[in-house]
C-alpha cells in the first residue's frame, strides 16, 4: 500500500504528539500517584447506616493534618452537609450512596468522583487555602438534584 510522504510525516507528527501526552499522564500516575479515583470496595446499599464507619458520617482525625471524612449521599443531600477542616490538612473522603447514582464534586479543587450504590468511592485533597468551598452533586439524581449541595469550610 502506497502512503504519500507528506501523509507519513503528518501521521508521525500526530502519533508523536499522542505519545508525549501518554508519557505525561503515565509518568504523573506512576511517579506522583495522579490516578483517577478508582477504589474497589463494595458495600450493601441497604445497610449503609449500620456499616461502620458510615454509621457515623463526618470527620475522623488520623493524626495532625491528616483526616478521613465519611459521607453518605442520598436524595437530595449529603451527610454531613457541612464540614470544617483545619487549613493545610489532607482529607481523604469516603463516599457511598444509599439510593441512586450521585456525584461528589468540590469545584475549586480536584475533588470529583462518582458515587454509586453498592460501592465506596474515595478521593484525597490537601486544603491549603482558607475559605468556604461549595460541595455539589454533579450527577443527575432526581427532581431536586439542583439542591443537593453542601460546603467544606477551611479554617
Amino acid at each position, binding site marked *: 500500500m502506497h502512503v504519500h510522504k507528506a501523509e507519513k510525516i503528518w501521521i508521525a507528527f*500526530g502519533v508523536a504528539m499522542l505519545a508525549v501526552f501518554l508519557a505525561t499522564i503515565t509518568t504523573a500516575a506512576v511517579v506522583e500517584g495522579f490516578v483517577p479515583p*478508582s477504589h474497589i470496595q463494595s458495600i450493601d446499599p441497604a445497610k449503609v447506616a449500620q456499616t461502620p464507619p458510615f454509621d457515623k458520617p463526618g470527620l475522623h482525625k488520623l493524626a495532625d493534618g491528616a483526616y478521613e471524612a465519611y459521607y453518605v449521599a442520598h436524595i437530595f443531600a449529603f451527610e454531613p452537609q457541612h464540614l470544617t477542616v483545619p487549613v493545610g490538612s489532607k482529607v481523604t473522603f469516603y463516599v457511598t450512596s444509599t439510593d441512586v447514582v450521585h456525584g461528589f464534586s468540590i469545584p475549586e479543587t480536584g475533588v470529583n468522583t462518582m458515587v454509586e450504590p453498592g460501592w465506596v468511592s474515595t478521593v484525597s485533597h490537601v486544603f491549603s487555602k482558607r475559605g468556604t468551598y461549595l460541595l455539589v452533586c454533579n450527577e443527575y439524581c432526581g427532581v431536586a438534584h439542583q439542591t443537593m449541595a453542601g460546603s467544606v469550610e477551611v479554617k
Partner: protein
Amino acid sequence: MLAGRIDVPSDFAIRFSVAKENLLVLAHIYTATAALTLGALFGLLQGFARANWIVMPAEFDYYRVLTAHGVLMALVFTTFFITGLLTFATYRSIPRVRSVRLGWIGYSVMLFGTVMATIAIVSGNATVLYTFYAPLKAHPSFYFGATLLIAGTWFIAADIFLNVAWWMKNNAKTRIPLPAFLAATTFVMWIIATLGVVLEMLLLIPWSLGWTSGIDVGLTRMLFWYFGHPLVYFWIMGAYLIWYTVVPTTYKGTVFSDSLTRLSFIMLLLLSTPVGLHHQFLDPGISATWKWLHALNTYAVVIPSFMTAFAIFASFEIAARKQGKRGFLAVIRWLPWGNPVFSGPALGMLLFIFGGFGGIVNTSYSMDVLVHNTMWIVGHFHVTVGGPVALSFIGAAYGLVPALTGRKLFAPKLALVQTYVWFVGMLLMSTSMHIAGLLGSPRRTSDVTYFGAAGAQTWHPEMVTAAAGGALLFISILMFVIVAVGTRFRDEVADERPQFSFAPVDDAAAPTPPIFDKLVGWGVLAIGLAVLAYVGPIHDQLSQPHFLAPGMRTW
C-alpha cells in the same frame, strides 16, 4: 459498472427499483428532521432555564426536557439520518433490482420504538436522561422503546450486509464499492456496540417490570459505556462518509486514497469499542490500570481522525491545483463556500478541530477529574455531535432531498445562511460551556446558583452566553425546517434531475490491498479486542461481594 454480469437488469427495472429506494431513504431523512426539530425546541428551553431566564414548570420540568432533548438528538436524529444515509450509499453504489422490504421493516420498528420511548419521556414516566443510569427506574415502555429503536437498526444492517454479500458473490474480482464498504464497516461496528446496550436492556426490562428485585449498578454502567462510546463513532463515521465521498463532488474533486479511506474505517471499527471506560474514569469499582488501558486505546482511535483530516485537505488541494490554484489561501478561497452541501460539512470540520482536541483532554486520564460531569463535557459533545456530525448531515440533506425527490431545493440562500448561523451559534454556545466547565459548573443541573453560594457565581455569565448561542442554533434549525418543509410543499420539479453522487478515487491513488475487504475477519478481530478490554474490569467487579440496588423513581 454492470458489465460482466449475466443478469443485467433493464434500465426500466433499475429506475423502478430506485424510485422505491428513494422513498425509503426519504422517510429516514424526514423522521430525523422531525426529531431534530422537537429536540431543538427542548434544547432552547434548557438553555434559557440554565441562564435563569425562565423556570420550567413542575408539570413539565427541566429534567424531563433534558431527557427528551438528549434522546431525540443523540439517539433518534443521528440514528435515523445515518441509517438513511448508509442505506442510500449502499443502494447507489450497488445498483440492482432489489426488494426494500427489509429496509421498511427496520424503519417501522425504529419508528415504533422511538414513539414508544418518546411518549414515556414526555408523559414524565422516564425522566432518567439519555444515559438512563440505574437504579433510576423508568417505566418499562421507555426501555422497550429504546430496545426496539436499536433492534430496528439491525434490520437495516442486515439489508446492507445482504446487498454487499450479493455484490461480492456477483463481482468476485472487483472491490466492494467504496460507499458500500464504508456503510457496511460502520454497521459491523454498530452491531458489536449495540450488543452491549441490548444486554443491558435484558437486565433493565425484567427489573422495571418488577420481575427482579435489584439491579447491578456497576455492570449496567459498564454495559452502557461499552455502547456509549462507539455510539459516538457511529455518528462520526456517518459524517466521515460524507467528508470522504460526498464533499469532493461539490468541487468536482476526488477521494484522495481508496486504501487510506478503507483503512481509517477499519481502524475505527477495531478501536471504537475497547475505549468505553474513559467515560468511567471517576467510577468506583474499576481499577486504575484498566482505566489507563482504555485511555491508551482512546489515544489510538485518534489516529484515523488524523488520517481523515489529511485526506480531506489533500482532496481539496489536488482538485484546486487541477484548476491552477496554488497556495493555502488560494485553495481556501476557491472552495465552494456558497454551496450548503459544502459549507455544512466544511464548517463542521472547523468545529471538529475544537471537538477533537477537547476529546484528547477528556481521555487524558487523571486530567478528566477537572472536567468530568462539568459543563466542559456538554460543550465537548455539542461541538462534536452538534458540530461536524449535525452540520454534515444537514449539509448532505440539502443535496440528498432534491436528488431523492427530483424537486428543487426551497430557498437555497436560506439553506446556505443556515449553515453559517449554526456555526456561529455552536461556537458561541460550546465555547462558553467549555469555560463554565473549567470554572467547575456541573452539567445536568436545572439551576446552578446554589442559593447564591460564592463558588457558583462565576458560572452565570457563561450560561447567559451559552443561551444566546443556543438561541442562534434554534433560529438556524427553524431555517432548516423552512427549507425542508418548503421543498416538500412547494413541490417544484427541477428542470434537470438533481444529482447526489459519490466522488471517484484520485487517479494517482495506488491500488487497495484486498485484505481490507475482509469485513468478517475485521469484525471478529474487533469483537476480540472488545472482549479483551472488558473481561478484566467485569471480572474485577464480579469478584467483589456483590450488592444489587432496588431502584426507585426519584422524580
